């Protein structure tokens, strides 16, 4: 599958982001393994360090297997001072996982992100690209049960 995507792109460093985006979308669990990093690096003639650097720069890529829903808690200062710590604690208790982990049923992955650009609504988090602001423990509980209910 990766091979087909690679073949569509010129063998040049500039194709890297395009390839990663395209691949992560079609791949289940939306993450990129070590072997795939190597394969992409080889094809483009860049180092694996380079691929890892790009993969890790963009928070929508992951190098770990991920759940169906990706919850990203903002970790930057405005959110921090407005209580993102509590948001995180609530999420960890609700989902019974620590930050960076995925639930056993592979439904949720909990991650940090840097500023979501919603500082005036701090603390903020994002689930699958949708942003939630002005969070408190109760609001978080409501949001999570909604996501649980949807499936």
């Amino acid at each position, binding site marked *: 599958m990766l091979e087909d995507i690679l073949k569509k792109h010129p063998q040049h460093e500039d194709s890297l982001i395009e390839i990663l985006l395209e691949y992560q979308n079609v791949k289940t669990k939306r993450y990129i393994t070590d072997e795939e990093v190597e394969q992409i690096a080889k094809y483009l003639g860049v*180092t694996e*360090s380079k691929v890892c650097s790009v993969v*890790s*720069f963009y928070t929508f890529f992951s*190098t770990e297997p991920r759940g169906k829903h990706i919850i990203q808690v903002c970790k930057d200062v405005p959110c921090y001072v407005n209580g993102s710590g509590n948001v995180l604690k609530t999420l960890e208790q609700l989902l019974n996982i620590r930050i960076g982990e995925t639930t056993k049923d592979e439904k949720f992955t909990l991650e940090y992100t840097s500023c979501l650009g919603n500082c005036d609504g701090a603390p903020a988090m994002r689930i699958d690209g949708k942003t939630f602001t002005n969070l408190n423990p109760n609001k978080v509980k409501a949001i999570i049960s909604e996501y649980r209910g949807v499936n």
Partner: protein
Amino acid sequence: MVNIKINNTNVTVEEGTTILDAAKAKNIKIPTLCYYPDLDIKSDCRICTVEITGQKGLVTACSTPVRDGMEIKTNSPRVLNARKTITELMLANHDANCTACEKNMNCELQTLANTLGIDENRFESVLEMQELDTANTSITRNPNRCIKCGRCVDVCKNVQGINVLESMNRSHEMFISPKYGRYLSDEDCTFCGQCSSVCPVASITEKDDTDLVWNALDDDKKHVIVQVAPAVRVSLGEEMGQKPGSIVTTKMVAALKQLGFDRVFDTDFTADLTILEEGNELIHRITEGGKLPMITSCCPGWINLVEQQYPEIIDNLSSCKSPQQMFGALAKTYYAKKENIKPEDLFVVSIMPCTAKKYEAAREEMSADGKNRDVDAVLTTRELGKMVRQMGINFDQLEEIEFDDPFGITSGAGAIFGATGGVMEAALRTVSEVVNEKPLEKLEFESVRGLEGIKEAEVDLGGQKVKVAVAHSLSKAKQLADQVKAGTSPYAFIEVMTCPGGCIGGGGQPYNTTNAVREERIRATYQVDSDMKLRKSHENPVIQKLYEDYLTKPLSDLSHDLLHTHYHKRRT
């Protein structure tokens, strides 16, 4: 020209000059971290912050050009405060255990904290200790000391074209490492050490082998000998507080004697020997239709690059070992026998400008008896400097002592191995005399000297015009290697040195190496050459005698056994 004011003094500088350079010209020091001379301007760290009268925000001196009438304050309270905050933030994420640090008293962060008068940090430490990378024999990486200035990334990517070090993640979670926190040896690191030479702190350093050497020196049963590479005599002075380009050969020998080495020898000797072997190999390849272009093999960083990324051109490499390893092989056989020392009681140390030499000496094929290493320990110029200081030697007061016999008689051709173009020039001095059967009218091959990235020359070998090329820094070497790989290389002979400027700019050389410093070391190198009585390797009488008594002739069976090797595709 534009007129500006720095700290209330009038300064006239050329348009386009950065504030940093304008201040430097007036001897005003503005601290820098992400900026390093000759590298890209990144303006990330903001430590070079200065104030401009009438302007609201502070600006970065490294990246801001002066404008006519600008009034700059490099040391106002506002500026100092900003720098203090930046430094405190860095220290809060730094393993600031200075007394247990290799770079204590020689660290840019420490100096900064010191000059800013930081005695207490307002910020609590957020450091999460990470594992060190000690997985290879050349370079140690300590992520707990990294201040994320990005200099190493720049050197590795843009100067060397390797791109092993990269930034991972972003904002406050950003860190610098190979391949997502893994080891340098998990990637195609050449161990050139250029990253270690620009790192402002002790986050990337050579693997410290000084204890190994102290212990050998302390062991009465061991006969400990040392060889010193050509590039060390023109740089060690800097470690001892002298100015770049100082030639300290005889004091260096005296210092090594004081450290307790039984004999002090010169790698220039085996550089001469390399020329005889490699020169004859070249003549052989040209006349017998062997693989061309032939490419020099004395630089281990370059060998690593070929084995990792250019296995197709391995046969183009000269089969000669490097001078360091020729010395080791001769020491453990010829010398041990002559001096009646059991090879296992002989401990061979080399002082090199180079971190990759540590890797080379540890390669398993670099062993005459197939069991023990030919070169037991490799120290960089910096490590030698450290030992001399540890011993409390007053370097300037040392007497002048010459190298020991027999491996102390050398030629100027061996001496220039330390500079880019030097191996080529040394080889041409010998090869053209052998082939043309008459003395050279002019010894100097100026077209292959200097800091130009790729240099070319055309030489007359027995009526045949032959093109040669010289590259230094791996990004330039890759250009020539690509041609060879594609079969379009117009050259018969290519010299490659991994480090910018050649070994004089090696990854183990004194800190603060810039192009200006490289120029000085190069000038000194050619000075050493022109001061020598002997200028051509084949005229070295001790080399001639070594062939008569032992090796018989260049490329003999014994030469092949001891002085040549094979390379193969691999990951280091």
